[in-house]
């Protein structure tokens, strides 16, 4: 019972940040049809900026709780600045090229951005644990739970809810849904696709950076840590269904819980199990467990 | 008369939609058969079943006495039934000549022979001869994606013929071709096909083409064959006129010839 609870909380915590990052990846894929490897760089940039900012704020005497302001700031600044710059200079000029070439271009971008991080932030790891200190631990079912992790779960719920509202209740969201559903039809209906592409790319970048920023206080932010996240979020997106928002949630939950179970019970299969599920989904249901066309109607 | 192609009790349903309903026909060697019908009448479904793209829900197709129901397209091709397509299916980034070379290469090679070189002098000579025969030799070195529609259609048919099939199914050879070009194109095709002594079934919307080139008409309506007769008879059949020709541009003339309808009646039904 206690074990099940631990797996659940661990898994949910893990699923939360995977969901936020994968949500960004999946909306970019759904709308632009680009599998963005550079998404891992948004994540890493978000984490570095956040850790750096927390350090600065803390030296200025801001309270541990107050340093949390660094998280949204880092996510927004990184997402908007980096996302805009990349969309304007690279992505925009690749529309219409072979999709694999575009993936490769984003891989090139990823390599570049990884190193720019080193040039800007140096090679030493950053520790920015202040926000975690501000969160009191909580007893759940007799087990001590890290408070920060619980806020992460809350954040992912909020992000999921906001995305749902934006996509289903606003004009812009309906445009986006229309394009995911059928971009040619959307063009025929007079949607300014280029503009939607731009906004979605930036929004996706913000989400990627937010995932990184939020995770930053719980880990040592060090070179190369975006590498694993890319392929994990690919797995999440593939499992759920590429381009599907509901799918990102399901995929993240599955990966998070599976991994938490593996880590606690059967560490040897920790990574293996995630990718085995990914392969199985591709084999038996390549459109994903939560196919986008069925997820929404316009 | 022995049937080279025989369909018996063919049915095909897609969910609730019936695309073919109890089709029974026998086609004799060297016949030229026109398949007509409004859009969605089941013409292409029939072609797709004969060539293996679709498996019939029930019924059987026999070719030269052999049951070919449900075989894959490539097997049916190898047995001697080839087809062309409504939208020409060619290798868009290859030249006209290379398109034919690849087609010849596959037709020539069985088993491990596919590992032999593609460019043999003898094969190149054959490719050139075929290009001349279909009067597209002047486009020899042009990349297929840059070809005019009519030439691409001829290439498509030429590629279907390299395997020297016993039966050729043409799916709307003149669709997308201008009125001025259509007879020229069909003359080239039909004279080339006659030389090869191939049995031809072709789907056609254009009644002028049907009247001029076929010896027998199969009229489809809602998945069923409603008429099977020589063109002179079929094109004045009241059912054919009501369900098939009524939609066609030449419908009016046909109706008048049949003494069936005064101007303006029923054409939009």
């Amino acid at each position, binding site marked *: 019972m206690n074990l099940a609870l631990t797996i659940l909380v661990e898994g949910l915590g893990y699923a939360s940040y995977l969901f936020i990052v994968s949500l960004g990846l999946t909306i970019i894929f759904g709308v632009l049809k680009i599998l963005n490897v550079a998404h891992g760089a948004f994540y890493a940039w978000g984490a570095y900026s956040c850790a750096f900012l927390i350090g600065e704020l803390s030296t200025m005497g801001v309270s541990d709780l107050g340093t949390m302001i660094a998280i949204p700031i880092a996510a927004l600044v990184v997402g908007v600045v980096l996302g805009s710059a990349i969309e304007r200079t690279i992505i925009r000029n690749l529309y219409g090229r072979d999709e694999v070439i575009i993936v490769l271009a984003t891989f*090139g971008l990823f390599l570049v951005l990884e190193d720019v991080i080193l040039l800007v932030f140096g090679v030493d790891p950053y520790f920015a644990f202040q926000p975690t200190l501000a969160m009191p631990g909580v007893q759940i079912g007799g087990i001590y739970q890290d408070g920060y992790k619980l806020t992460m779960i809350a954040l992912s719920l909020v992000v999921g809810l906001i995305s749902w509202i934006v996509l289903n209740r606003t004009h812009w969201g309906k445009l986006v849904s229309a394009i995911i559903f059928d971009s040619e039809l959307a063009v025929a209906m007079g949607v300014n696709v280029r503009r939607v592409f731009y906004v979605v790319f930036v929004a996706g970048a913000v989400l990627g950076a937010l995932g990184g920023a939020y995770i930053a206080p719980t880990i040592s932010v060090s070179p190369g840590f975006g590498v694993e996240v890319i392929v994990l979020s690919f797995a999440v997106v593939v499992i759920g269904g590429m381009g599907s928002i509901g799918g990102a949630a399901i995929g993240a939950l599955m990966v998070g819980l599976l991994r938490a179970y593996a880590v606690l019970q059967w560490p040897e*299969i920790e*990574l293996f199990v995630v990718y085995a599920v990914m392969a199985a989904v591709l084999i038996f249901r390549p459109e994903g467990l939560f196919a986008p066309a069925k997820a929404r109607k316009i | 008369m022995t049937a080279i192609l025989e369909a018996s009790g063919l049915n095909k349903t897609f969910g609730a939609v019936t695309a073919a309903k109890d089709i029974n026909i026998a086609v004799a060697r060297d016949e030229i058969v026109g398949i007509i019908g409004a859009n969605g009448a089941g013409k292409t479904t029939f072609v797709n079943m004969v060539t293996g793209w679709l498996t019939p829900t029930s019924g059987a197709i026999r070719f030269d006495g052999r049951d070919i129901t449900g075989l894959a397209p490539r097997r049916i091709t190898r047995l001697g039934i*080839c087809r062309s397509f409504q939208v020409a299916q060619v290798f868009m980034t290859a030249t006209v000549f290379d398109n034919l070379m690849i087609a010849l290469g596959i037709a020539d090679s069985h088993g491990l022979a596919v590992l032999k070189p593609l460019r043999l002098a003898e094969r190149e000579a054959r490719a050139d001869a075929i290009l001349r025969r279909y009067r597209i030799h002047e486009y020899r070195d042009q990349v297929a994606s840059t070809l005019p529609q009519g030439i691409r259609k001829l290439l498509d048919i030429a590629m279907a013929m390299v395997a020297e099939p016993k039966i050729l199914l043409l799916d709307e050879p003149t669709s997308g071709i201008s009125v001025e070009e259509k007879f020229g194109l069909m003359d080239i095709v039909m004279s080339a096909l006659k030389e090869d002594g191939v049995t031809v079934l072709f789907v056609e919307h254009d009644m002028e083409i049907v009247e001029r080139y076929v010896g027998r008409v199969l009229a489809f309506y809602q998945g069923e064959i409603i008429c099977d007769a020589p063109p002179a008879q079929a094109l004045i059949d009241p059912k054919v006129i009501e369900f098939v020709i009524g939609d066609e541009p030449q419908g009016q003339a046909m109706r008048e010839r049949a003494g069936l309808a005064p101007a303006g009646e029923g054409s939009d039904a």
Partner: protein
Amino acid sequence: MTQFMDRTVIGLTLGFALVALLGVFVLPDWLMSQVLIAFSRALAVLGLVVLWRTGLISFGHALYFGLGAYTVAMLGKDLGVTEVLITLPAAGLVAAVVGFALGFIIRKYREIFFAMLNLAFSMVLFGILVKTEALGSTDGFSVEQPTLFGIGTEDSTVKLTVLFLAVCTVGWLSAVLVHRYLGSVLGSLTTAVRDNEIRVEYLGYSVAQAIHGKYVMSAALTGLAGGFTALALGQVDPESMVNWTVSGELVFVTVLSGPGSVAAPFIGSLLFELLRTYAFELVPYAWQLIVGGTLLAVIFFLPGGLWSLISKLGGRDRAAQPGGNRGEGER
């Protein structure tokens, strides 16, 4: 016009002979070892070029690279087999067998699904290797000293020279065979499959079979590449041999080289290796930046890869390729 010795074969033979001679008599050890690493990787790229011509790009060939590398390393470690005439063919064979088995599934996929399924399979192997204590987990383990005809050596220059000559020989042979393959009827079913699968089926050939064959071929070549790399580095580990970044790198060199010629992978791979080494020496913390920037530059300015540049400069070289379709892989 088809002769047994066409221009490409003569060119390849002269080119590889020249490199081999240069390596043995002129090049310093460090450069020879760069060529060794580069030509090893080029074997994998050669296979990926065949897939790319078919319109398929795999983001998971690190699977076969890793299988080849670990096969060589494990034969030495667990069975005491160090004879390269056994270990290297075994590397190719193991990869080919796994490729053949997975090929039954993979041949049904195209485009991004093809790329992703390969990625998933390769990451499964990665996930297994990083957690396998017996194989050194994330640290991997070192490869036993190789032997040729049962003879081993402690002299690193001799060892390097032998491996170098071996990779030149295998590279030459593979390039000639792949060139011959591309000039065959089956070889024409690369761009033909990419252009129009329906037509290929209706000409009487199975698209699935055509893709499967090419996939196994690329797996075998990538396995060989992994085997050579393991011997060259004297060490195997999951991170540098099986992780997705390795697959990315292989695809990178494929695009850098371009699908125009079987010689391109060797030239592209060598340039990549030199670029990486110099970038690393010049700016240790920013070599990825230079490499990534180069990749972007190639995508934007040289869509046909380096080979398109070479053939532009060299005039009408491309016309000499039998069965070769118009160089650029762009649609």
